[in-house]
């Protein structure tokens, strides 16, 4: 059975038996673009698909659904949370562990439909590049995203239903590859790195899409947007943008699971995920911790609290 059919079948079963109120998955819109879908009715499960354009990390919607009294970001309705099913790729599934470790919602409210994923294509659901002058050569369109090329194991780390089969051998050799962009930056001198990043941040328009798409960025009011204390001014200027991006990277250290959605959504093609990956490496080197492999808090919590 194709993944699409498997997901549809499972969704139908979960909704009909009222095990869940809602299935968060993917659908294809009128222009042929894949996008998040919220299915509440068993009759609508045929909307759900799986394809190589399923780039979105759907766990970013879980807080709304399962913790309405909590973070107000992306708040929809006030309601007592019913159970929700969510379709996740291996990277997305790691986000669930981080959210669980941070006590956003109880695991029992979630039915995880984990997909053994072959990789998501480059430039799908992409903003900026569609209007840029650069036209991609055809061969690039069949290439998977660089985060997929770094993926270890292709298996969700947590699931209630598995779509696809556990890969027969772990392709661990691919995992550490394709960090070329990170290596390139690390070879720069601090002055060169500063120049690089400031030229990237210069294009930033503080649209906050990177923050909004991230499941781990869920503070009720972002530090960088506080109206009362104004830690950072409202100016869309280099100082403010630098503060936001670097600060956000630190706030995600040990928590970012590397889905790279932040970079995908940026309308200005800023390589946001490079910062997060850099800090993830640091955290791993210092504390031996990798985000999302298990529902344990990040080292900043465990180490600082003395546990």
């Amino acid at each position, binding site marked *: 059975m194709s993944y699409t059919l498997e997901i549809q079948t499972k969704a139908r079963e979960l909704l009909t038996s009222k095990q869940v109120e809602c299935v968060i998955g993917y659908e294809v819109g009128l222009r042929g673009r894949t996008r998040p879908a919220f299915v509440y009715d068993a009759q609508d499960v045929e909307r759900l698909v799986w394809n190589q354009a399923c780039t979105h990390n759907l766990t970013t919607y879980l807080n709304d659904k399962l913790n309405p009294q909590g973070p107000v970001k992306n708040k929809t309705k006030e309601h007592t949370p019913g159970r929700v099913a969510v379709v996740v790729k291996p990277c997305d599934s790691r986000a669930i562990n981080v959210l669980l470790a941070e006590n956003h919602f109880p695991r029992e409210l979630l039915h995880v439909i984990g997909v053994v994923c072959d990789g998501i294509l480059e430039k799908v659901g992409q903003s900026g590049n569609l209007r840029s002058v650069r036209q991609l050569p055809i061969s690039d369109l069949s290439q998977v995203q660089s985060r997929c090329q770094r993926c270890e194991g292709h298996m969700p780390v947590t699931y209630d239903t598995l779509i696809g089969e556990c890969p027969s051998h772990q392709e661990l050799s691919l995992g550490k590859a394709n960090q070329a962009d990170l290596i390139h930056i690390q070879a720069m001198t601090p002055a060169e790195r500063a120049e690089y990043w400031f030229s990237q941040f210069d294009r930033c328009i503080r649209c906050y899409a990177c923050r909004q798409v991230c499941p781990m960025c869920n503070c009720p009011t972002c530090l960088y947007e506080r*109206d*009362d*204390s*104004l830690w950072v001014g409202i100016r869309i200027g280099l100082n403010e943008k630098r503060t936001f991006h670097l600060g956000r990277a630190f706030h995600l250290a040990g928590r970012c699971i590397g889905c790279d959605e932040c970079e995908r959504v940026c309308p200005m093609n800023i390589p946001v995920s490079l910062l997060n990956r850099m800090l993830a490496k640091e955290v791993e080197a210092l504390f031996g911790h990798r985000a999302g492999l298990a529902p344990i808090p990040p080292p900043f919590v465990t180490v600082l609290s003395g546990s």
Partner: protein
Amino acid sequence: MILLEERSNGKNPMLPYLGRLVKVKDLASDIKLFSVEMLDGGREAFKKYYPGQFVFLSAFGVGEAPFGIASIPQRGTSLDFAVNRLGSVTTELHQLGEGDLVGVRGPLGNWFPMDEFKGKNLVVLGGGIGGAPLRPVLHTVLDNREDYGHLTILWAARHPSLLVFTDEYDEWRSAPDTRLHLTVDQPDAEWDHNVGLITDLLEKVSPSPENAISITCGPPVMIYYVNQVLCKLGFKPEQDYVTLEARMHCGIGKCGRCNLGEKLVCVNGPVFSMAEVGEMAEGFL
């Protein structure tokens, strides 16, 4: 292209006039009454303004925020504003003392059609700091008492310490054909007036809608429920006036923030009749 000098008398609507704080008084818990004397060009700009209008006060270095004007020009040249300490601008304003300068942009917005209210009975309902934009209405009526019919004032707050203009109640009570009703949600030891919500008080007082106009100002929730009671008492939407609040950044209809559907609170309001509010697709609540 018309040159800049030909427009708006060359005056930049985002450039504030300067005014000096001549008096700062504690009005209620965390609420201060500021009296401001305008300087230079501001004196001319504020020679005439009407009940219901507002200004943007600048706490220089932090920003600006909208405040209803709580005075009338007929009673003196200084402008009064009630400032509740809630956010960064109001906190900064509360640090200021007599002699300090503030920025003032205005007068902005529309106003209560006091001339249309002449000869009518007025029911004025003020909740908490919502009483501030109603004070000019009361002063206008009291200073021209024969021009208006019965005056019924319902004044409310969550707690006695939050009631505003307590030093004027005697003036209001002693005016001819005028009744003042007070109520609080939570009384203190000295309280010996009504206890309960303004909606309960309104039902108790039960003013007649005959030849009457109601004017309400307060938190959105209060305006909403007061309006329901007024409906029950037979008031028609055309008889009910409110002054609405919305988050604003320019006050002059440019930044688009304060819209309620196609209306902008800063230029089509802040005074609306409930008939107008009823036509708005978007609710203010």
